[in-house]
């Protein structure tokens, strides 16, 4: 939130733009200009390019005021939670104004922090609604970064809640033999068959490998750790020292 001069108005993400809008800053009329409600910041510039920008996190609230007893014109009211600076310039002028200032925007007695009150008074009163709505939308794009509450259960990145609910968290990360078999695609089955063929060809016939026997029913399935006693070959284990 800054008082800037000769900064060009934003060109991107402008949700609403309103020409012929007067700006009144803490009671001080700045003349007529154009209000830009952009996604990145709120800004206002007069005809000569002088103006100011506001960052949305610095805005406490904004409102449409139609109460002519509170202020003689319908306008968009914005409360900023800081003092607008160019501090030296603004404060010097404020001090001068305070002396004969019967405007009751006297912030010296407030304890809850300095504020700046800005009123944007468009010539076209019908524009107040779209101006207000555009500000609501842009404000929602800038949630409070210091807010702890909403971060506790929710860390960083967006995730698809539906996917998390319906997805693989409920399914075990491994399949039992029967389940795994039923999940295979045609290609998967072909690969499995090929591997089985390779395994049974390379290993000794006596060994039943876990998961390889496809013809067995569940009842016949063993864990493959046991040697089939009926089919040992003499001398089979003589080379048992050799590492495989």
């Amino acid at each position: 939130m800054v008082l800037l001069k000769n900064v060009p108005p934003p060109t991107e993400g402008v949700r609403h733009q309103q020409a012929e809008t007067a700006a009144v800053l803490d009671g001080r009329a700045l003349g007529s200009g154009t209000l830009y409600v952009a996604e990145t910041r709120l800004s206002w510039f007069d005809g000569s390019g002088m103006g100011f920008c506001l960052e949305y996190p610095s805005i406490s609230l904004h409102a449409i005021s139609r109460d002519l007893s509170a202020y003689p014109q319908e306008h968009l009211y914005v409360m900023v939670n800081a003092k607008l600076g160019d501090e030296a310039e603004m404060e010097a002028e404020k001090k001068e104004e305070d002396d004969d200032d019967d405007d009751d925007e006297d912030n010296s007695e407030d304890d809850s922090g300095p504020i700046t009150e800005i009123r944007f008074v468009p010539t076209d009163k019908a524009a107040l609604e779209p101006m207000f709505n555009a500000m609501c939308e842009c404000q929602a794009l800038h949630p409070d970064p210091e807010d702890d509450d909403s971060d506790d259960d929710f860390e960083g990145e967006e995730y698809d809640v539906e996917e998390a609910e319906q997805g693989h968290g409920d399914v075990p990360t491994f399949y039992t033999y029967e389940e795994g078999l039923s999940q295979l695609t045609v290609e998967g089955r072909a690969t499995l068959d090929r591997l089985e063929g390779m395994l049974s060809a390379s290993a000794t016939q006596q060994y039943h490998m876990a998961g390889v026997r496809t013809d067995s029913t569940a009842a016949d399935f063993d864990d493959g750790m046991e040697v089939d006693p009926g089919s040992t070959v003499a001398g089979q284990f003589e080379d048992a020292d050799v590492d495989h």
Partner: protein
Amino acid sequence: MMEVTHSIRERTIAENSLVILLQGLQGHVTTVELRDESSARGRLVNVDAFMNVRLEEVDYCDRRGRPSKVAELFITGRNVRYVHIPDHVDIMDTIQTQLQKIHRVRNFGSSHRGRKEYSKKTASTL
């Protein structure tokens, strides 16, 4: 007025905090007290997951107690201190209703319909 946000992130935040209660108050007249000790009483138009509050037809009292009427008011979540729950509002009912709305939105278009999303996964998903 009581629609659920289209943002996945906001639904998640709302579901996991009491903001969901405030969202259920949309349409009611309530008082919001701000951190700077001003207050606003009006009809709750919208509360988002960040507790940004939008009110209409508001009686606003600034921090020095000066009253004024405000047609529409948007209060940044950070500046909300209290939101008064109207006496006639059943808090548990409100929360349950809002949760149901969120679940309906979340499961829209999926194979789960109605109450099935609350039951354990059955063989149909294995």
